[in-house]
């Protein structure tokens, strides 16, 4: 049964305030503040272990922050995660696809979970959009990493999310597929979707986004390395350990 979620169009796509996340005693995120409007594209960059994937997972509601608040499209994502999840599409390190099933069967499964209307038509549309229509009826485990990533992109946009979280989506994609991905990202943004693109390939991410945020040791290490002057992101602030109320450990 198709399910609709009312989105507060006046609210930002993401409003994260003081997001911290602790893993087994280690502070992976330290008081992250982030606001992203609908239609904006943000690159999330930083070295390995900077906290990019953790932040993406928190924004995707896969991980609950240990401190802070998060709203997606005006919905309190910590109190009403199921509603917020309908607005979010995620491409992660894993494709979240079942190897024994074909790409089309995987999409059919997710269409049922998300309550996608006219599912078969929509599945054909997204398969065509990512260039996988010709291989859609092969088991996913038989597809190359790049084709699996395309199937993962199709899964992420299947329910027409308002916010796309892409965690190193270029992994495994050849040059042509990366160009296609860039076109898709630009196209999705034109349709008013917000995009957060985590990558440590700054130049590549630069071409696809409006702004960038640099993470370092789980804290915001700097804004806008692309040196653009139109950033609407909040000013740089040091990450605070909100749980402990003290400066972050380095």
């Amino acid at each position: 049964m198709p399910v609709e979620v009312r989105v507060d169009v006046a609210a930002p796509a993401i409003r994260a305030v003081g997001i911290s996340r602790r893993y087994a005693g280690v502070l992976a995120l330290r008081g992250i503040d982030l606001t992203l409007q609908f239609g904006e594209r943000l690159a999330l960059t930083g070295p390995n272990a900077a906290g990019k994937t953790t932040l993406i997972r928190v924004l995707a509601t896969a991980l609950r922050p240990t401190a802070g608040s998060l709203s997606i499209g005006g919905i309190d994502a910590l109190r009403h995660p199921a509603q917020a999840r309908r607005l979010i599409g995620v491409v992660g390190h894993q494709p979240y696809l079942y190897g024994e099933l074909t790409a089309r069967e995987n999409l059919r499964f997710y269409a049922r979970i998300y309550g996608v209307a006219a599912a078969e038509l929509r599945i054909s549309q997204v398969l065509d959009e990512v260039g996988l229509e010709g291989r859609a009826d092969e088991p996913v485990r038989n597809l190359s990493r790049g084709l699996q990533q395309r199937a993962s992109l199709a899964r992420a946009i299947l329910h027409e999310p308002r916010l796309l979280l892409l965690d190193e989506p270029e992994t495994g994609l050849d040059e042509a597929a990366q160009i296609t991905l860039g076109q898709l990202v630009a196209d999705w943004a034109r349709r008013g979707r917000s995009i957060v693109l985590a990558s440590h390939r700054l130049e590549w991410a630069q071409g696809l986004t409006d702004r960038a945020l640099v993470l370092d040791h789980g804290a915001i290490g700097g804004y806008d390395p692309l040196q653009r002057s139109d950033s609407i992101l909040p000013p740089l602030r040091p990450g605070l350990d909100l749980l402990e109320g003290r400066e972050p450990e380095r």
Partner: protein
Amino acid sequence: MTAFVGQVYAVLAKDLLVEWRSRDLVIAMIVFAFLALVTFNFALDLRPDMVSAVGRGVLWVVVVFAGTIGLGRSFAAERDQGTLEGLLIAPLDRSALFFAKVLGNLLFMALVELVAVAAFVALFNVAIDPLPLAATLALGTLGLAATGTLFAGIASNTRAREVMLPVLLFPIIVPILIGVVQASQPAFGEGAAREAPWLVLLATFDVVYLAAGAVAFEYVLEE
């Protein structure tokens, strides 16, 4: 409610299709159950007058051990394949996921029990009244699937998940094991009409474990 049932159906249908394509789990469970019965048959070498008394315990121990294999894989396979996170970031009701996994485990265990009971009758040369046994199997397996699914979810968050499940599960299912062994007496031609209180006890456990699992599952899968 319709959306909830739809989500249960979607996850259950997906699990059955994945298992149909791979045939990894049920075949492993059936082979394990058969080999365990053969081993018990040789190891115990029961006299005919002892078969009904000891055989009930043997049958249920085999069902529990074979079932644990399937229960352990229900979430471990999702986590190994990276698909569990795909479920967790989807607007999938956690209790719908729990009930779908319980139903899937119930079906897989029922298939194994069909083969195990037939092998048990053949190997131990014992006559069984199928109706009382079916009632006991149904209630006992439902309880085992409910508790096992809940604890498989908990164990899937641990590093040694395959080892952790039996360690967590076996102490919890002792009441079910006692109940099913006692309720199986009439099926083996002993203590007719004495199974009713045990069946009520099993049904009560089933309801409690299903309700507890549905409520607790929201927090079980959280990292």
